[in-house]
């Protein structure tokens, strides 16, 4: 038999909340909730383990979190700061292996060596990673190690927080067998409920029954799920492209929006924010999509390909408003959430023209605006005025924007 692979799954513990504690140590030990503002209609992005004790989970509406734990500290999301930390986390991971697949901002899996010596080498790698993340980032990371991705991920989930769990070769099925079915990645609450109806509660039971039984629940995925439940998962770790596939922002409103003018304004703000992030990453994009959630939670999306790639928030907004209004014309309901997303991303490349100074002028203006916005961000939240969630139009930037609009 070939040498056993070793896959390491690393997951930063309560990342956003931990990142906030890192820069404000006085928050340590307190229930901490990142995402939205109290009384608002946002959702929890991240909760510290102290907050989780009150039953608070990511994705839960802020209002519900407030009811569960009124004494919690609520903080807004600061993506720029988390991204910076995540980049350092990635750098540490890339020292450990050249085969790293980033699953999200705070989660990654990596392949250790061509023929690691089990269990000493993988265990040492896991310990080293945990030490470095603690020493260099001041954060805790949980590590799961196994012979494949699925088992490593489940091991990490069980070891949380601040733990390390290693499943030696040959023990995958035994390890998974007693666990409830929804511990397996890919089995959500709906599938778990339907499995219960079939009398299947544990992964061990799932592994026992013939795969064709599972077709009613998993369709074409039945075979795959059946294998995974036995601890078999041949998927390789595939390092993805560095460039993101899409960039976007969404926002849940304090009260549902019905006025077209308000919806247009919100989409403009989201578009500007998205465009600014694209420029920061040195990217241009060509496909604009919008997401609209109505008051009854019906969530719909539309997208459109622009004639040319863009980095301009106004062009993105124009497309987004058109798409959103199409949906509004069909549904005629108040809007709870709006999202704008740009895909078809490629490195920024603007061909300047001989007889037409506008492309260059627009580019220089956008860069000037980005610099102003960065300076304002650096000055801190105190100088942020109410009602200008939109990146720019404050003070001198307003003049530049109107100059841009006149072009």
């Amino acid at each position: 038999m070939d040498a056993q692979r070793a896959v390491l799954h690393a997951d930063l513990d309560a990342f956003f909340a931990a990142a906030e504690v890192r820069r404000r140590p006085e928050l340590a030990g307190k229930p901490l909730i990142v995402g939205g503002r109290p009384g608002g209609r946002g959702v929890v992005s991240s909760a510290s383990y102290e907050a989780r004790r009150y039953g608070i989970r990511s994705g839960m509406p802020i209002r519900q979190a407030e009811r569960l734990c009124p004494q919690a500290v609520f903080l807004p999301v600061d993506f720029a700061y988390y991204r910076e930390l995540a980049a350092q986390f990635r750098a540490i991971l890339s020292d450990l292996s050249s085969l790293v697949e980033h699953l999200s901002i705070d989660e990654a899996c990596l392949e250790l060596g061509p023929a690691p010596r089990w269990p000493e080498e993988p265990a040492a790698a896991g310990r080293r990673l945990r030490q470095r993340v603690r020493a260099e980032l001041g954060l805790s990371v949980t590590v799961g190690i196994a012979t494949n991705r699925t088992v490593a991920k489940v091991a990490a989930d069980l070891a949380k927080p601040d733990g390390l769990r290693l499943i030696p070769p040959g023990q995958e099925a035994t390890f998974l067998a007693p666990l409830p079915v929804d511990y397996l990645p890919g089995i959500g609450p709906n599938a778990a409920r339907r499995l219960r109806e079939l009398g299947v509660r544990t992964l061990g039971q799932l592994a026992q029954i013939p795969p064709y039984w599972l077709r009613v629940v998993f369709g074409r995925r039945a075979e795959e799920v059946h294998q995974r439940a036995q601890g078999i998962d041949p998927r390789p770790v595939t390092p993805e492209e560095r460039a993101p596939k899409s960039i976007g922002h969404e926002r849940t409103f304090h009260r549902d929006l019905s006025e077209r003018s308000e919806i247009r304004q919100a989409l403009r703000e989201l578009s500007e924010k998205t465009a600014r992030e694209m420029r920061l990453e040195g990217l241009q994009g060509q496909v604009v999509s919008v997401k609209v959630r109505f008051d009854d939670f019906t969530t719909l999306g539309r997208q459109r390909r622009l004639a040319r790639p863009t980095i301009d928030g106004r062009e993105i907004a124009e497309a987004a408003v058109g798409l959103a209004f199409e949906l509004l014309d069909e549904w005629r309901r108040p809007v709870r959430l709006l999202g704008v997303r740009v895909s078809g991303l490629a490195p920024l490349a603007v061909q300047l023209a001989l007889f037409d100074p506008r492309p260059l002028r627009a580019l220089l203006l956008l860069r000037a605006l980005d610099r102003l916005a960065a300076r304002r961000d650096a000055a801190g939240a105190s100088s942020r005025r109410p009602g200008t969630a939109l990146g720019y139009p404050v003070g001198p930037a307003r003049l530049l924007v109107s100059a841009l609009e006149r072009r």
Partner: protein
Amino acid sequence: MQVTCQQGELHRALAHVSRAVARKSTLPVLSNVLLSAQEGQLRLAATNLEIAIAASLPARVAEAGQLTVRADLLTEFISSLPSDEVTLRIEPGSLTLAVSCSYSKANIKGIPAEDFPTLPEIGEQTPTARIESGLLREMIGQVAFAAATDDSRPVLAGVLVEFQGSTLTMAAADGFRLSVRSAELDEPVAEDLSIIVPARALQELARSMADAEGTIDLLVTPTRSQLLARSGPVEFLSRLIDGHFPEFRQIIPKTYNTRVVVSREAFLAAARRAKIFAQSNNEVVRLQLLPGDSELDPGAVIVSAQAAEAGDNEDLLSARVEGPKAQIAFNGRYLSDVLSVMKSAEVALEMTSPNAAGVFRPVGDTTFTHVIMPMVIGNI
């Protein structure tokens, strides 16, 4: 009409004029070639209303006359014939051309010559200018490629041809690059004038006179609506584009911060290599101009391209770099286009900033200037 000529000469003349035959036209006569027999010669002409080409060949004319017949049929039949005498005959009052050669004959149905557009000829008129044919072809080759290939701004699909004293200047710009070439005429023109000739027509002119030797007569019609060119038995006509060509001299930068001199061949090879990777990244080819630190190390140019998913490449060229270190990005096609039409051993690139035009000049030759607008990329 009755006329006799050599199969080889007739075939060559047909090949010349066929390039002006309309490919798809709603007017059937434009798919035809006009045959006119008179005074010891047979004249062939074709036009697509954009250009016209005429060619004459010596012939024994027994009876003068005219007719148009399908160019493709006649060309294909003539080319199939043996190298021998060919006789073309039209019975009075008939619209059928009888072709006979050796033991072969054919009857080709035609359209009356009166339906064919009237084409002006230089004839006995004094030409506007006279130019050596090789020089004219070189000028067209160095300029016409920079014209726009779409018609969104019609003047940019043309080449400005300027006669000023004894200087002939050609300029073309597609909106992103500008190519300018000038040459001295043997004799000054009687009156300064400038015209805009469709770039495709000029390229066709260069092709139709590809084997011409000696000089070419150029004539701008008095109404300034057509350009005629004549070289020996071949005459060429193009319509002109109406409008004002942009003030191209104003957009050629007069100063620079960094100037690099590099071997043209090495630069061209590097640009072509970079294009391989640039094609998956908006054609972006990046140039880094690095001044040297001593007489012994005059500097270098790095030509590179990268595509996130495909990979990247880099060429290091030794070069003489004056001025501060700089970088700039161009569309790789524009870069290889200009480097492949230049003739000099060394080329100079002058630039002021990554956001401003780059100027390409042959070293030791002031008759050619090429300007390319850069691409602004994220990491410059």
